[in-house]
């Protein structure tokens, strides 16, 4: 934390108004520019918190993984026997190939549709002022602010009334409700960072609207589009409430299938079956993310100008 050269200087100056606690050099014997070897107590506290959080996280992940490979596991530290049979039986029982295909299909349909619908709206919101803009912005913010169950239940009722209940179309449609506003909100901030005079310059040089779009805006927007797509992907694959309300056996995504297996009548399925499905879920998510992150850096959505020089 301490840049000791500055501290050494400040120690000489009198306390300034606005700084009620002028910091005395923590260790006067330290020479300017030297850092103390012992970290401050606050630093230890933060690191202890991080360690506890990661222990909890590691415990959660490893115990699910160990459970999914163990034959029987009750009263010992580790399962006495190891097996792969939970995976094969989970695959057969729940038809995981179909469920994973549905999950990916829903996710990609939602990504493409929400970009196609959301991006033009984000462009307008970022570039022009018009009467009623605040109202439109509110309309796009509400689905993000209101809990999914609140609009999910009326929406699911409408879907069942339309005869779309338990279909893939309904699952895709309900997932668009939070995704499109999400794309609009993130992309509006992204487009606002692109200097409008670039577009104006292209027009001055004789570019038509289509050329401005394809030659100027599209290349500049690609990083933002990809980053927003990843976030929509993570949200859609992980979205439980909305999908759960309208999906049926043929249109369950993986999360919903696991939940149904955990809560099915008669006390739920064997714990290890569910653990193996959970591992499949995490593995799928990690593969998709690793592949996606090879092409995109999601922090591109957030402009950072400079790193803290506070070190």
């Amino acid at each position, binding site marked *: 934390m301490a840049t000791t050269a500055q501290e050494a200087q400040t120690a000489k100056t009198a306390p300034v108004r606005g700084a009620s606690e002028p910091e005395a050099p923590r260790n006067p014997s330290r020479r300017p520019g030297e850092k103390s070897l012992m970290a401050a107590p606050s630093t230890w506290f933060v690191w202890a918190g991080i360690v506890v959080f990661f222990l909890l996280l590691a415990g959660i992940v490893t115990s699910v993984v160990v459970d999914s490979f163990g034959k029987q596991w009750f009263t010992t530290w580790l399962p006495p026997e190891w097996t792969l049979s939970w995976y094969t039986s989970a695959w057969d029982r729940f038809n995981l190939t179909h469920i994973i295909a549905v999950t990916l299909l829903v996710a990609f349909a939602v990504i493409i549709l929400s970009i196609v619908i959301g991006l033009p709206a984000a462009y307008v919101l970022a570039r022009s002022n018009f009467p009623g803009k605040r109202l439109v912005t509110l309309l796009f913010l509400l689905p993000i602010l209101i809990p999914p169950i609140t609009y999910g239940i009326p929406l699911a009722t409408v879907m069942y009334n339309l005869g779309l209940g338990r279909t893939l179309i309904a699952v895709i449609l309900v997932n668009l409700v939070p995704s499109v506003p999400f794309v609009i909100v993130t992309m509006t901030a992204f487009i606002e960072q692109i200097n409008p005079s670039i577009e104006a310059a292209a027009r001055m040089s004789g570019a038509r609207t289509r050329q401005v779009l394809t030659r100027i805006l599209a290349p500049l927007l690609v990083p933002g589009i990809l980053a927003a797509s990843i976030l929509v992907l993570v949200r859609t694959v992980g979205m439980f*409430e909305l999908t759960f309300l309208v999906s049926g056996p043929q249109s369950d995504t993986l999360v919903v299938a696991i939940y149904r297996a955990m809560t099915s009548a008669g006390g739920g399925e064997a714990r290890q079956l569910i653990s193996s499905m959970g591992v499949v879920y995490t593995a799928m998510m990690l593969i998709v993310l690793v592949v996606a992150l090879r092409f995109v850096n999601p922090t591109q959505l957030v402009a950072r100008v400079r790193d803290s020089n506070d070190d």
Partner: protein
Amino acid sequence: MTSIATKPPKSSASLKHRLAERGIDARLWLLLPAIALALGLFVYPFAYGFGLTVQPLSSTVDTYGGGIFANYVAFFKDSFVFDSVWITLRLALPAALFNVVASIPLALKLRRRFPGKRTLQALLVLPITLGTVLTAQGLLIFLGRQGWLNRFLVDAGIVDEPVQFVNNYLGVFLSLVISGLPFAYLLISSYLSGIDPVLESAAQTLGAGWGARFRRITLPLLAPGLATTFILTFVLAFSVFPSARLVGDASGSTRVLALMAYRSFAEQLDYSMASTIAILMGVVELIVVAIVFFGRSFLYRGSTGGKG
């Protein structure tokens, strides 16, 4: 905009021009798909759901009276339903507060460069890939009576009996922290990166200590971002549903509103009561959000110097 086409060509040019000066031009058509989607899939179902709430089942009317508002009377009179408002708030408010408060020192400490920073950040964001259902399963196994933590505590002699970590309030709270903390950390550290570090350096040069710098420079600039982060994590925690059922005590201390709404919807098939609970749930949440927004309007607004 539709009126443009009907006008004669000469005046239409000037009208078009005058409209364009006020910001109404052909680009607004780009908004149409998004608005149509929001109206069709958000506003219409909401209105429909609101209509449902004033068409109560005859059994509800018989029990609670109140005519077409029987569902609302039932919501406030039936303590089994109404208590879940407090249950939800007791769970969501502390969880959101904890996530925001715990993220501040985390984001501050991880702001500077150190070896392995990227790896640590990637690991912090990892829980987002786990999803609520897997987190619930992991909590059940890891913190259960036979789980590693209890086994360690008993073997080390810290406790005599296994501690009940899951199937109660604590289990849901932990699952909310695991899913909410990375999110809060990401948001807060992005707000923090928008604050120009030169401001803090200046304060340091002028003799401000660590505490004064945080209290007088960083915190006031960060406060609006903290309020926004609080709202977003609160929204996530407020609609907690799968973990309340899986790692909570679904009939007692974690009988949250989302669960009650779902039960009416899928188990009792009482769509009008389900819509009532769902909409009142949204109202309760928006009241909290509005209070935070109101408080936020007193905070610092404007440039934080770090961007642009």
